[in-house]
């Protein structure tokens, strides 16, 4: 996304809330420009009674840049647990004494059945996710075969994968096999990442994101809100994501996992979650913002409001180690909101 120079005067801290939002509206909708980090911080400080106005602006920006449609997708774990990394929110790390037992690689027939079930719900994205630092040769063979099988047998879904840190050769091989998109989350703001993980660096993650783009795949990168970062760091994070110009940004909200260092972490409040979604939309107006893990727990009855605050994609069904709410509940919510579900953009 191009960063157009700000033509409006920088918002002063003392500006009225309505004025701050009006300037953001003009910048994004009339000038097709971008808000600055300073402006985003001011918007973030708007009082709670301005939240619906912020959400409304974010929704209009979403519709203007991305259209009315909602993209549905599902995820599946290609290998659960046994991960050597120590991301301290994750129940799949071997470092922590969690209840998640490691599995082998998912059998191809089980994966294919899940892809077909996904397609039957009307979803168009299917992402296969492995709990690993990165792929070795054997795992690469499994991933490439999974991509081939789904592409050949379920043409109404696009295949994405998430296999950790990559080399450029591995990224190229996945692109050549037909992986439409690669997910690799930055997870947290750069300034907070060393409190989250010690076995790899934020820069390692960013480098993999750059390789994904160089390989020609769509980049899916987002993170988890509620890892102990400050409100200001959430804005920092959104701008760090925006720098990568991702096609898709999954927004997870921490669902604390027993046995992990963040197992007792306080949940993000629903209103703070809505505020964060809206700000991410204003900062990344053209990205696909996807509801991901933790939305049921964090947002509860405000899940519909998130769809009116900038979200335009959803993971439906279950997650990697926990269940989601039923897909029918999501479809009913979209029907109530009169939001159309998008069909696949191209049949592979």
């Amino acid at each position, binding site marked *: 996304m191009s960063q157009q120079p700000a033509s409006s005067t920088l918002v002063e801290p003392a500006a009225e809330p309505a004025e701050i939002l009006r300037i953001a509206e003009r910048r994004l909708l009339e000038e097709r420009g971008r808000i600055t980090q300073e402006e985003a911080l001011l918007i*973030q*400080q708007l*009082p*709670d009674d301005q939240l619906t106005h912020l959400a409304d602006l974010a929704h209009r920006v979403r519709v203007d840049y991305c259209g009315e449609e909602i993209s549905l997708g*599902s*995820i*599946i*774990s290609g290998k*659960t647990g046994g991960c050597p990394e120590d991301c301290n929110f994750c129940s799949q790390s071997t470092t922590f004494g969690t*209840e*998640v*037992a490691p*599995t082998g690689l*998912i059998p191809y027939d*089980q994966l294919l059945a*899940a892809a077909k*079930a*996904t397609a039957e*719900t009307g979803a168009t994205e299917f992402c296969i996710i492995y709990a690993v630092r990165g792929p070795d040769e054997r795992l690469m063979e499994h991933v490439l075969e999974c991509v081939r099988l789904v592409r050949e047998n379920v043409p109404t879904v696009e295949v994405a994968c998430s296999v950790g840190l990559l080399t450029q050769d591995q990224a190229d091989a996945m692109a050549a096999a037909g992986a439409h998109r690669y997910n690799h989350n930055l997870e947290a703001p750069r300034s907070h990442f060393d409190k989250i993980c010690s076995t790899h660096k934020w820069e390692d993650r960013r480098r993999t994101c750059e390789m994904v783009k160089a390989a020609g795949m769509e980049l899916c990168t987002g993170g988890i809100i509620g890892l102990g970062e400050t*409100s200001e760091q959430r804005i920092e994070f959104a701008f760090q994501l925006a720098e990568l110009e991702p096609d898709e940004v999954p927004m997870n909200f921490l*669902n604390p996992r027993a046995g992990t260092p963040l197992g007792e972490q*306080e*949940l*993000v*409040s*629903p*209103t*703070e979650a809505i*505020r964060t979604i809206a700000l991410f939309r204003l900062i990344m107006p053209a990205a696909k913002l996807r509801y991901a893990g933790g939305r*049921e*727990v*964090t947002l*509860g009855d405000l899940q519909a409001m998130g769809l009116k605050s900038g979200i335009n994609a959803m993971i*439906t*069904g*279950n*997650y*990697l*180690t*926990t*269940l*989601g*709410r039923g*897909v029918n509940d999501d479809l009913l919510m979209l029907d109530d909101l009169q939001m159309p579900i998008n069909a696949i953009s191209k049949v592979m």
Partner: protein
Amino acid sequence: MPDEQSQVTGDGVRDERLAVRDALEVERRCPDCGAKLTVQILPHGYESHCTPCQRRARFEKSEPGE
């Protein structure tokens, strides 16, 4: 700066959110032997089994009858 916790969020609401969380968990321990279950969560449903119990069942099946 808005407070992290909603001003209207009391203990009851927090408990309700935790109840939502609990409802989305899957059983992780074998009810028979207490070992960790191997769980494969699928987009729609999940499968689980207890490897020690499976091994035990195979062993007992292969033993000659008394």
